[in-house]
């Protein structure tokens, strides 16, 4: 995997060092983790993971080695796993649903398939990043950013609306089929209403943005100067830096920090199935994901935002609170189908 080159090893070991350091201070979560481990040793729990195997398998192995709880992991697309859980109903073999986005968790929650999490778990995460009913919590965050090429745009546009300026015609890149783009547009619908979202999207379409297959391709196009701006997630930039070295990366991230959809922080999160008969072991997994070890893994391997205090980010990022993400219920991001309909109507999806 490409994340194994030298500069990345450096950041990873740095993150691990930080983890060890902060583990000394963050004793509360650690003790909670180790007491449950004793009771659940040797049990096998089943995880439906919407997060990819190449990213997550090392963390899962680490968990099993440390707690003795064995894992059966079923990987899939978060949405498809949600559909699977809805079809299985209360007979599901899954104990844990680990999803790539809040929408999938929200859908499973509203079907009544998740059980409430204990308060030590929910309290660990800011209220903005967990279910209103305490049935799932975020495990890491991804901030939307405007990636820009400073050689082409001296100062980045201050708000989403400034992107509609005709001077950016054919200069903005996006990834129309990507889930994170669609979550961003869903957030736009939630913050500005249907008409407002439609107006902004129509304006963007008039500026003829350039469609790419993946976020990584948008980033590369901005970095090479093919286009000036790109709407993607924050970590793509750091992925590139760790891959080719900071000296070769021109592009920069701009955080809007204005409570608009451009400041959305989407999450990956976890919930325990109500039908699970191994709740204790399942909770030990949830606690592990929120522990310093788990959180540092996300920060180091995927460059995502940790969700609990005490884990220091190794790249200089604005803090989670500084980001000023929009005041929406993340579970409402499940209305992606309406978003796709809207995108198709304004001509930004099927082109």
């Amino acid at each position: 995997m490409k994340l194994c080159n030298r500069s990345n090893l450096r950041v990873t070991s740095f993150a691990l060092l930080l983890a060890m350091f902060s583990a000394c201070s963050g004793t509360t979560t650690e003790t909670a983790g180790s007491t449950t481990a004793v009771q659940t040793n040797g049990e096998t729990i089943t995880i439906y993971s919407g997060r990819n195997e190449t990213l997550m398998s090392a963390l899962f192995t680490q968990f099993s080695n440390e707690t003795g709880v064995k894992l059966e992991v079923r990987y899939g697309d978060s949405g498809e796993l949600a559909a699977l859980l809805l079809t299985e109903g209360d007979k599901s073999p899954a104990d844990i649903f680990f999803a790539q986005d809040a929408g999938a968790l929200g859908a499973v929650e509203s079907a009544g398939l998740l059980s409430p999490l204990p308060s030590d778990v929910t309290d660990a995460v800011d209220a903005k990043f967990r279910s209103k009913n305490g049935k799932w919590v975020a495990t890491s965050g991804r901030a939307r950013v405007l990636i820009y090429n400073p050689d082409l745009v001296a100062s980045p546009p201050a708000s989403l609306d400034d992107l509609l300026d005709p001077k950016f015609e054919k200069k903005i890149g996006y990834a129309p089929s990507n889930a994170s783009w669609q979550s961003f547009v869903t957030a736009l619908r939630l913050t500005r209403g249907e008409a407002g979202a439609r107006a902004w999207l129509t304006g963007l379409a008039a500026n003829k943005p350039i469609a790419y297959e993946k976020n990584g391709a948008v980033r590369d196009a901005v970095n090479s100067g093919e286009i000036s701006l790109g709407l993607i997630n924050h970590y793509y930039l750091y992925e590139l830096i760790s891959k080719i070295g900071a000296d070769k990366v021109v592009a920069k991230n701009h955080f809007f920090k204005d409570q608009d959809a451009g400041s959305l922080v989407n999450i990956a999160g976890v919930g325990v199935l109500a039908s699970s008969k191994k709740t204790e072991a399942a909770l030990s997994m949830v606690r592990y994901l929120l522990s310093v070890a788990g959180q540092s893994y996300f920060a180091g391997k995927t460059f995502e935002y940790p969700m609990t205090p005490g884990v220091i980010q190794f790249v200089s990022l604005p803090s989670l609170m500084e980001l000023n993400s929009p005041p929406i219920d993340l579970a409402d991001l499940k209305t992606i189908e309406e978003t796709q309909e809207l995108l198709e109507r304004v001509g930004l999806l099927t082109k």
Partner: protein
Amino acid sequence: MSRVLRAPVAIVAPAMLAGVVALLPLIYLMDASLSQGFGAAVREIIDARTTILLIRTILLTLIVTTLCVMVGTINAWLVVRSSLPFRPVLLILLAMPLAIPSYLSAFAWVSWIPTMKGFFGASIVLTLASYPYVMLPVAAMLRSADPMLEDIARSLGVGAYSAILQVTLKQVAPAIWAGSLLVALYVVSDFGAVATMRLETFTWVIYGAYRAGFNPTRAATLALMLVALALLLILLEKRLRTRVSQRIGSGTARSTVRRAPLTVVAPASIIAITSLGFGIGVPLISSIRWARNGTATTDWSEVFGTIISSFWIGLLTGTATVLLALPVGILLARFKGPLANITEGSVFVTHSLPGVVVALSVVYLGINLVRPLYQQLPLLIFGQVIIFLPLVVGAVRTSIEQSRIALEDVSRSLGVSRMATIFRVTIPLAVPGIAAGGALAVLGAMKELPTTLILRPTSVETLATSIWKHSVVSDFGAVGPYAVALMFLAALPTALLSHVAVAKSVK
């Protein structure tokens, strides 16, 4: 045909069982569709967006099927009737697009020409992926059809083109219709190509309703509309096919090869070369390029492991599907009547369903009825059997229809019982068709992604799931070795299939 025989129970019972198995997804679909009440389902159907989808899907099906008929028939003619050298090899190569999953070839095209997205790109990729469904039966029929009629037409002063169009084409019409039905049902159910080309068709929206809408009711209702569409297509094909009279004996063995004028061979060869270059060249070159970029990080023991599991799952699916398809094929070919019609309809009607729908219906039935087998190998095979049953039934039926019924009569007149005759005469004569059908199922199972992802035993990886796993992460190089391995593995049943389906000796 005027022979009406009562089918033995030993054939009828398993054939009906196959029909019931194929219809099982409908139970889930009805339940899911009506779970929000009848009104919600009706609202979904009369929605304006649904109408647009329906029109777009039908248009795509129509265009791809027409293109496949043209490309498939021309290629079949070229490998059977022309005097080109290396025709047997050419035939096998021309069948190779069957070995390439639509999601892979679509991705290869898009990464080569990004502007190809949309209706145009989807039509091209689907045509390249499915013309062999027309080519193979047409080639088989051309081989067994009497070339004398074309010779007579030519001797009466009819031009080379006209003779082919007026005489030969009519002779192979049943094969064209049968192939068209398979193409049409495939186009209606395919997700990989339309998703990559970002063309909103029924399957795209059905997937969206599950994945993005978390709305199984909507997905199920739309899927039921696909079933209705399939029913229409099946009835249409049946009408068109039975209008054509069939040859009764197989005649004297004679060479089918004709020295056709260059004005016919040259354009046909261009079509064949284009099919080869676009159908296998583009995806193969792309995959090798991906593989070369990603070799440094490939875990070869994992590649090898997935090859083994793809092979076994394919083989098990092939065997199970053949066993279930055999009685249906015999019933359809030898005991025509209302019972045969109903069984045929049941087997084919769910072939229009996208993989995810079949997989979730098997989840629904499996978890409620056979809980211990849930997420175990038998249930995965079961799901694949539902999907590939029609392909095998078609191959078996055609093969039996083409073998000489007189031999069965002789066997009966010598005092051999009906069942014994089926085992000793009918089935051995149909072995090439059975093998071809089995190969189609093996091939399909190796390529099938959504069913495998949803129904596989946890932690079992096949080539298809590995391609999926590595393509989700932005590093596309890792996909290459799996893509190349899948194409080469799937090439084996494809070669077998095209060889036995066509190279059958003239009886």
